[in-house]
């Protein structure tokens, strides 16, 4: 494990996505924007260990994994901007990024990376011995039938897949615990594959577990499951209404509370007690978001940086390099 390599990839991803955030807020990137900021430890701990011929099934937050896998950042940024000379000719946007060269495919449909990685692994077994596939997905996807079907298929066919569940505890903007039965690692384990639970904000933990899974898959011993916790620094997506309410209560709240109070007091409907219960659910959701923000978020980039801070010169040099790369990306796009 080379922490310098890991930190470099994580920082590249973080800065790239921070630039994306600025461009989105400026209105230069359209539609939704799901960033991977906060999950870099998970992505780096796995993607930096991949070999040529390994494949990637990516969800709607695929930018980070593609960058670390070695995609040209200029092509990627151009794609997010919808430019005709972007990675996918401006036709994909951030949720549907594809690279046939890197055997990487994305999808905005929750759970779809399960079947995708399973098929990649099937082809690998016939055509690329010793190669494997990765499925990245959130814990919300654990409630999609196709994900469970994929676990079953991968185990019964003994396929080289690593299922990586990035658990941020939110299914879109619903708290996952309220809509998820049982324990997710137990759920995966009953299919008969090895499972690991790691702190996804510590890239070292991810790397070590991933190593075991990768070795196992390459040796033809079948799939594994990793549950890695994380916090998405920007919520579900940029402009997340919950985060926005918490960050700018004065401008956001009147639009929410006035209709809410009107409806709460309107005649016809549930008992006063049930109404209050409903209100409590909403207040709890906002409250949970505030608590999540206040609690020191474990930022994977900061955590790994702390481990390297003693080597000041080398760190500064590396960071300067990464900044320079990003500056190059931005200037090459703006100069056109």
């Amino acid at each position, binding site marked *: 494990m080379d922490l310098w390599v890991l930190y470099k990839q994580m920082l590249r991803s973080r800065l790239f996505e921070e630039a994306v955030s600025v461009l*989105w*807020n*400026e*209105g230069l990137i*359209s*539609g*939704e*924007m799901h960033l991977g900021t906060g999950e870099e430890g998970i992505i780096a701990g796995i993607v930096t260990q991949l070999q040529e011929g390994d494949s990637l099934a990516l969800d709607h937050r695929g930018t980070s994994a593609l960058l670390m896998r070695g995609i040209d950042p200029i092509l990627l940024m151009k794609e997010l901007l*919808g*430019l*005709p000379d972007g990675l*996918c000719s*401006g*036709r*994909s*946007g951030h*949720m*549907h990024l594809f690279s046939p060269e890197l055997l990487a495919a994305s*999808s*905005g*449909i*929750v*759970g779809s990376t399960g079947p995708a990685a399973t098929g990649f692994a099937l082809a690998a077994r016939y055509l690329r011995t010793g190669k494997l596939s990765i499925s990245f997905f959130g814990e*919300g*996807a654990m*409630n*999609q*039938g196709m994900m469970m079907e994929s676990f079953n298929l991968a185990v019964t066919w003994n396929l080289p897949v690593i299922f990586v569940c990035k658990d941020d505890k939110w*299914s*879109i*903007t*619903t708290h*996952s615990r*309220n*809509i*998820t039965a049982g324990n997710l690692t137990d759920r995966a384990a009953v299919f008969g594959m090895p499972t690991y639970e790691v702190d996804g904000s510590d890239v070292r933990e991810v790397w070590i577990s991933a190593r075991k899974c990768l070795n196992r898959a390459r040796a033809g011993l079948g799939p594994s499951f990793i549950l890695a916790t994380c916090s998405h620094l920007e919520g579900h997506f*940029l*402009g997340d*209404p*919950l985060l*926005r309410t918490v960050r700018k209560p004065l401008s956001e709240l009147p639009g*929410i509370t006035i*209709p*809410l109070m*009107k*409806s*709460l007091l*309107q005649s*016809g*409907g*549930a*008992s006063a007690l*049930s*109404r209050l*219960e*409903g*209100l409590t*659910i*909403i207040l709890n*959701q906002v409250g949970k978001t505030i608590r999540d923000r206040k609690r020191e978020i474990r930022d994977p980039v900061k955590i790994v940086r702390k481990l390297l801070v003693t080597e000041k010169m080398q760190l500064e040099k590396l960071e300067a390099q990464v900044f320079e790369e990003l500056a190059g990306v931005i200037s090459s796009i703006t100069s056109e």
Partner: protein
Amino acid sequence: MRKMKFSEAIDDAIAQAMAADSRIIILGEDVQALRRNLLVRFGKKRVLNTPISEAAFTGAGITAAMTGLRPVVEIMLVDFIGTAMDAILNHAAKVEAFSGGRWKVPLVIRATCGGGYGDGGQHEQSLWGWLAHIPGISVVVPSTPADAGGLMFSALEHPHPVFFLEHKLLSDMWLDYLGGASRKSVDFDVPFEGTYGQVPSKWTKIPLGQAAVRKTGTNLTIVSLGVGVHRSLECSKILQDNNISAEIIDLRTVSPLDIRTIHESVSKTGCLLVVDEDYQGFGLSGEVAATLLERGLSFEYARVCTSGTIPFSRKLEDEALPNVKRILDASLKLVNKKV
């Protein structure tokens, strides 16, 4: 009369129906947040958050409807119906036929649809023709707040499964949620007449299968729905400047299809243009033409639809979706052909 926004009108119609009928419940992803106004009035027993498990909760909605409830199942974006398609295609649509008409499925499936805000081809489809293709499913696509509320009110009392599709460009709530419309410097071609308008003080049913003539005309019939109605109306003003009088028909429901209203209009104009944001092939636009031909009508015909996967790039997307220029070009070509 009151004035309301598009989605607000739908929620308001649902609220009126929920107050009168305790069998109506809402279930779907994030609905306790998205329908928070209904949550605080009707309580959590009637507004249920679901996991991201469309196949399960849509399928469950069907049998719950068969056994006495009147569920409104929300599929956040109609594109996400893929995983639940079996429930729709092989169950919701078929129970009544299989039971010899003895068992009905009074289910409403509410979903957003449509593009124009740069979210890519997995989040911007229309799919109403694809859904209406299945016998046993009604498909509603309103274009104004008054219609949206009235048609939802109707759907909630309908004894059969109804798909209720809400175009995102008409809903400020969804456009903000999915398009980040609160950002300065984003520019969407929103048809304002469809986003905010007068609604009745108390909701009454607008029957499914009844089109609305939005503008009368003599030279050309334009049949459309959803945002396409507003694009067509905008185009008709330019046509008027060229002394071409277009009649605009808003279908409001794809299925049942109000073929009588279209027939009457095309009998008069002899010229039909279908403006359909759904895919061109094997869909609504062809169905309208075929049905009129079966009725022995002879007319000039053209269509403006979406032909391929919707591109992410805003520029490419605008070109791919039915826009005013494409409607205008097609209209002029069609009217000239007639002469």
